[in-house]
């Protein structure tokens, strides 16, 4: 090789080396720096003023979420796709991720996306679920984290509390921004023709999680009759963990829940009431919605649940006690449970958990008395033994059963 060709080769290597570095720098510029600047601009423009960041407890919870690899089964990124929006809600906007150091978008979904997990389940549910996921959902493959507890879901350590605080914070910033925040972001986006960007603002619900309990909501009318065997199968998969295999509220997941799960064997339910509760859950309790079940499955489940109640002939109430019951009810109960037992009394808007609707659910005398004597832990239903005497308690326990309208 002569000197010129050597020089040529050296030159070409120099060019090549520079080119290599340029390629790499280009990738960083095109896929890192430039999108970063765009996203930063979007964040600045679309973010509501002073969005709520994480509290100290939530930050600690986030560190636990990180160290346990939660993001490797639960993404935190709702994509601009119909299928994601239907299951999880509004696609993730850049500004929603502004406090995520580092991001937790995640590579895999074995469990559902958690970007809008906040206020989807109750705290109790989270504790019970973290302590023993299969107590609530026998088919779950989530690892259990008993080391975050002092031996039972009732006794969370600080780490469990922090983790649940963090889970409850997911999706909060955008929810708190409210309709004004949405309008602001949409105006700032200024993207009326960008179909994909528009998707962020077109979700029917910000949080579309079918499990999220709703205080108010319509429910589809259940077609009767369902398939009882299918109902049993669904019940054992999805319900028995808390409500117990015989509906006696003694499932393995029940112990950590306040209020306790409903005693299905101790109540007679109307189909409409079951349809409503299955669809909307019971807001403020650990009863989630089951809007991901098909109408046929819901009907089957309702039929099975109605069958859990052992119908027994209970003696009719003497007329004088019935009058006493009506009087006691009107004086003490109607304010919350409503004049006609529909759970629609004047005090309802003040209550965190909707009071029992006796038109849709008839408690057995024993259940009714138990609630009157002990109250219902975790709700505003207090024990009445101090205010009512035994005769009054019995009278009203019988009386509320008369509101039921769902007998078949």
């Amino acid at each position, binding site marked *: 090789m002569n000197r010129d060709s050597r020089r040529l080769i050296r030159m070409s290597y120099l060019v090549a080396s520079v080119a290599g570095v340029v390629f*790499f720098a280009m990738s960083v510029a095109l*896929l890192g720096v430039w999108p970063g600047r765009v996203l930063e601009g979007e964040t600045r423009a679309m973010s509501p003023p002073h969005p709520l960041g994480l509290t100290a407890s939530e930050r600690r919870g986030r560190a636990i979420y990180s160290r346990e*690899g939660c993001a490797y089964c639960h993404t935190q990124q709702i*994509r601009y796709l119909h299928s994601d929006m239907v299951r999880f809600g509004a696609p993730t906007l850049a500004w929603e991720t502004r406090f995520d150091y580092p991001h937790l978008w995640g590579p895999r979904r*074995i469990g559902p996306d958690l970007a809008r997990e906040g206020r989807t389940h109750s705290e109790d549910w989270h504790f019970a679920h973290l302590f023993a996921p299969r107590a609530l959902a026998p088919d779950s493959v989530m690892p259990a984290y008993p080391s975050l507890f002092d031996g039972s879901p009732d006794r969370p350590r600080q780490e469990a509390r922090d983790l649940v605080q963090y889970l409850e914070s997911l999706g909060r910033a955008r929810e708190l921004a409210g309709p004004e925040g949405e309008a602001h972001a949409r105006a700032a986006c200024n993207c009326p023709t960008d179909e994909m960007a528009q998707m962020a603002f077109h979700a029917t619900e910000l949080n579309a999680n079918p499990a999220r309990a709703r205080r108010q909501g319509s429910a589809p009318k259940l077609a009767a009759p369902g398939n009882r065997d299918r109902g049993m199968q669904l019940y054992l998969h999805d319900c028995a963990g808390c409500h117990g295999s015989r509906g006696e509220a003694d499932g393995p997941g029940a112990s950590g829940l306040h209020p306790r799960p409903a005693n299905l064997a101790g109540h007679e339910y109307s189909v409409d009431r079951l349809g409503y509760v299955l669809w909307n859950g019971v807001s403020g309790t650990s009863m989630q919605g089951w809007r*991901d079940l098909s109408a046929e499955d819901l009907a089957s489940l309702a039929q099975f649940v109605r069958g859990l109640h052992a119908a027994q002939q209970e003696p009719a109430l003497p007329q004088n006690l019935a009058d006493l019951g009506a009087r006691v009810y009107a004086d003490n109960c109607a304010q919350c449970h409503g004049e006609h037992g529909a759970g629609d009394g004047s005090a309802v808007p003040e209550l965190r958990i909707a009071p029992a609707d006796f038109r849709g659910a008839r408690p057995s005398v024993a259940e009714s008395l138990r609630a009157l004597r002990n109250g219902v832990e975790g709700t505003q239903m207090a024990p009445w033994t101090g205010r009512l005497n035994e005769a009054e308690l019995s009278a009203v326990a019988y009386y509320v059963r008369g509101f039921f309208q769902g007998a078949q």
Partner: protein
Amino acid sequence: MPMMEASKAVAAPRVEARLVYAHGLAAIVTLLISVSFGILASIELLAPDLAGNPPWLSWGRLRYDHTQGILFGWLGNAFFAFLYHAVPLLTGRPVVSARLGQWLFGLWNFAVVAPGWVLVLAGFSQPLEWAEFPMVIDAFVVLALVLAIIQFLPSFFWRGLEDLYVSSWYVIGALVFTLLAYPMGNFVPELVPGARGAAFSGLWIHDAVGLYVTPLALAIIYFVIPAATRRPIFSHFLSMLGFWLLFFLYPLNGTHHYVFSVIPMSAQIGAITASALLGVDVIIVVTNLLLSLRGSGVFPRDVGLRFAAMSTIFYLVVSIQGSVQAQMAVNQTVHFSDWVIGHSHLAMLGFSTFAAAGGLAHVWQRIPWARYNARALDWSYWLLFSGVILMVTDLTIAGLVEARLWQSAAPWLDSVRAARPYWFIRTGSAIPIAAGFIALLAGFTTGPRGAGLKSVERTIGLVPVGKIAPRLARVASGASS
């Protein structure tokens, strides 16, 4: 043995065989540990409460250690073993310093891999893909990468760059650009939040595979094929074209991990386009490699070459699959599903591991005092081959089943229930895979000393290197025209 034959004529470049040996053994030991993490994690998906849920055995931590162990422990050590053999032969010069090599070995295994594993199990980690070891470990990785550059690159420059064989290009490229890319995924997302950080994260997710694993795996394949087929590579031009396209296109793929995210659509589309073009590049590379392999059969007699040949085929399949699954129509369905887990195993367990195992077998044959068990390596090949095929097929189908359920109105848990039989088979595929790796260890630690060379004699024959790879030979012999 071809290269030794040639180098007898002139002063043979000193190969630090003890470092080859040390890294080779460390590779297989860390491989077995990493695979154990993976197997445990897969069993926990079938029986989540089996181990009693101690924090240090929880699924997430095992998952972190599994992939980091494969990336650093197994592939890192295997690559170093190969480099200690190949760099002197490619450059005609020894590596910079055997003592530096000992430091590098110690740093890599006892300041990165081992403490990284322990820290992750103890709850200190980073929730970032291919960057799960905590930041304190990242600092040692960067230090080790700098030392690796000091150790291996000067030989190329001392020798003069006129006669760089394509493997040399890949080695230089990999060492330099891994160092540059590493901070993108390990440090930047800690400083830049959310979606912005994810954009950088995406760069490293792809560069870890594209600028670290792939170039070094290709360096091995390009090295082993001419050395073991007794023919030069089919086309040096195609080699170089493939090399430059790879280094141009691979880094531009990153954002395809976040399709349909809030990251600007033009960046997504750019990355998707680059992903499609990357498929074209891989076709060029693989065509060149397969043409170089012609006449050797799909399953060549020499086990090192056999691993390298199958690695080439896996590389083609996994890359075409990658190009396809980056496309929006496919991505929106299979993303987040087990399809992707199948894809990553085809890349890391198929392509990369087969290249690394081929490279190790090749260099082991050429350590005169090393034990070598040809029969065990044969077993290893066939066990791994069947294990990979079973696992990847199974996970790919599982991904499609999950994806179909996600598109439907079915409850989420239905997709978990539907995946269970596939996860069972996946755990079952661990049996041939783990057995294959144990056989690999047996191949390198049992059998008579020096049996490797005998095996080369039997399968390839000892032919002067000049007839095999003139370019390699010219460089190796230190001849200058």
